């Protein structure tokens, strides 16, 4: 058992953090040049042939940086449905994608191409009209598609379970990244802001909620990395736990991120409530994540069903598939 990152994965995180700090709004092409769009694309298709664990490292950093772009919709949602030639285009940075599996489609303003779930398959949607809707998190859009025709058949609907696990795990670890940044702001504020002649972090009414925020975040991160590892195993068919791990991680991490942001806003006092401070943007992303795909309550209902309603052996938790479109 080894639950640590490799030196290469640590280096990838450092590279990502430094790059995103210097380039807060990178283009799709720039991400491709860094190799990020082809992390899990096979080497013969121009990718790095790595796993979802490396992608999770990037999702965490992209969440931290509040990255605005079609990385989530392409890599977490669409990629498993794409045939090799189209994956190669993604790895090269020539195209980005999104996947329409519910009424609200993410990154519709930025993604080049649209895949859509229809019947027993996933198809490219051609000639559709896109309407981008206003979202409270302006860094990640939602929209609706109208009309259009199914084009090339991309994959069987069987890939939807993998897509669901990937996207839930990606959202979970992204939530951890943004929550970490919110917590760092709150800690720094509690160390330096003085009231009644002392830094407010000495007061346990301030420090204990921060300790709890840290605790929830560490738990969320453990679940998210577990889910990421399970998803990375999925290709090898050696781990059946990915659906339940991803559901558990997203349910917990989304709520934790919302709570951490709320604690951070409270600790900041008035300034935390302003448009000027970055906290509200982190908070809105956390709320976006909580609402997308399936809420924590919905995911817990699925976990409860697998725990309590499974027939046969009582430990059937790991075998129970979780449906993609529930709550969508």
């Amino acid at each position, binding site marked *: 058992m*080894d639950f*640590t990152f490799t030196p290469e994965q640590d280096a990838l995180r450092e590279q990502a953090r430094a790059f995103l700090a210097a380039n807060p709004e990178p283009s799709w092409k720039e991400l491709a040049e860094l190799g990020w769009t082809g992390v899990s694309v096979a080497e013969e298709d121009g990718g790095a042939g790595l796993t979802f664990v490396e992608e999770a490292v990037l999702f965490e950093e992209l969440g931290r940086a509040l990255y605005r772009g079609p990385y989530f919709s392409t890599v977490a949602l669409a990629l498993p449905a794409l045939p090799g030639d189209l994956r190669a285009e993604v790895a090269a940075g020539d195209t980005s994608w999104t996947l329409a599996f519910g009424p609200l489609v993410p990154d519709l303003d930025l993604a080049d191409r649209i895949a859509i779930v229809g019947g027993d398959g996933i198809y490219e949607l051609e000639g559709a009209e896109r309407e981008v809707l206003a979202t409270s998190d302006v860094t990640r859009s939602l929209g609706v598609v109208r009309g259009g025709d199914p084009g090339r058949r991309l994959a069987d609907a069987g890939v939807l379970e993998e897509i669901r696990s990937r996207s839930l795990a990606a959202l979970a670890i992204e939530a951890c990244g943004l929550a970490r940044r919110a917590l760092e702001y709150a800690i720094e504020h509690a160390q330096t802001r003085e009231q009644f002649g002392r*830094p407010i972090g*000495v007061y*346990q009414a301030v420090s204990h909620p*921060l*300790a709890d925020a840290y605790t929830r975040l560490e738990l969320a991160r453990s679940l998210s990395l577990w889910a990421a*590892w399970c998803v990375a195993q999925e290709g090898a068919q050696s781990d059946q736990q990915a659906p339940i791990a991803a559901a558990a991680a997203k349910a917990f991490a989304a709520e934790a991120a919302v709570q951490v942001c709320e604690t951070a806003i409270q600790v900041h006092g008035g300034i935390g409530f302003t448009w000027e401070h970055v906290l509200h943007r982190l908070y809105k992303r956390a709320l976006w994540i909580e609402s997308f795909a399936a809420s924590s309550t919905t995911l*817990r209902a699925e976990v409860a069903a697998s725990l309590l309603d499974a027939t046969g052996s009582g430990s059937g938790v790991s075998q129970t598939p979780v449906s993609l479109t529930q709550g969508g």
Partner: protein
Amino acid sequence: MDLRDTAEEAAFRRELRSWIEENLSEELQGHRGGAARFEGPEMRAWSRALHDAGYAGLTWPTEYGGTGASYTHQAIFLEEMARAEAPPHVGVIGLGMAGPTIMAHGSEEQKTRYLEPILSAEEIWCQGFSEPGAGSDLAGVRTSARQENGHFVVDGQKVWSSFAHLASFCILLTRSDPESTRHAGLTYLIVDMHAPGVEVRPLTQITGEAEFNEIFFDKVRVPAENLLGDIGGGWQVAMTTLLHERGTLGFALQAALEVQVRKVAALARDRGADPLQRDRIASEWIEMQALRFTNYRALSKLVKTGMPGPEGSISKLVWSEANQRVTKLALELLGPDAALGEENAPYGGYWQHQQLRSRGNTIEAGTSEVLRNIVAERVLGLPKSR
């Protein structure tokens, strides 16, 4: 990153599982633990068997009777023991606290004299730290140790001491310099619990059992060679003890929580659960898994770097509050039967007992308030509140 057992770890786990299956009697399985229940000879025999099989003191060096195994083996051992609902080795304080402290600060003579009988369960230890006036604020210790003709004379009172009524020895934190205050002037002693002037009085707790005790010391003579560390250096020695108290427990606690959650799910399947209760059961299952993987992260860091990561400090805090919620959820699932006393309640009163006992979890071995201070100050780097 690979969350599976290595081939070698899997072999150890397999071997351990079959050993437990062969050696754990039905009477001992599901033993609820707690010092009050450790009195019978069968618990000593069980502990002795663990030692003979090499499972006591897994991480202790072989020269002191241990197995010299890795922390990962220790984690697997604690997990499998808890999953099998096997009672722990009776030497809880000796194995987890006194032994590691003696290994860190003791003389060769002390190591040779005291360590092996801890493993074989011939000698049980207790801890004399807390006092009526020194609980979370341990530096307020007042029990005195006066130096006199080559020995110490100890006077004072200790409290909340598990196993004191069974113990051969006590690790005792005393004030040797009457002029000193706080962390200075403290001295750490090994005290023979059968010495004249030592009196143990059991304290009955909220469950009706007596797991812990008061200890009174009236002019107890302690030989000079029973000093652990330096005169006046007791605080540093005590910190070693507390580090071990909180450090090695995580896996046993998580696995025990796993058993509780499994039982709550079984209870819900037996007696039904409404949608809100189902939501809470799922929540507890998820948090139990979160604790499990947080422990794994801490263990991996410990194995790789030799230093525990900050994740480790939250394990006991999370477990204690989770165990309180889970046991209370079980009572809710029992409906009106929850009010029945242990004699008449379903499942032999298991849940009534567990729920009441769980209230101690956020107090013993560091209150949740103290643990939150530790996280805030040492992990987050917030200014000290005192």
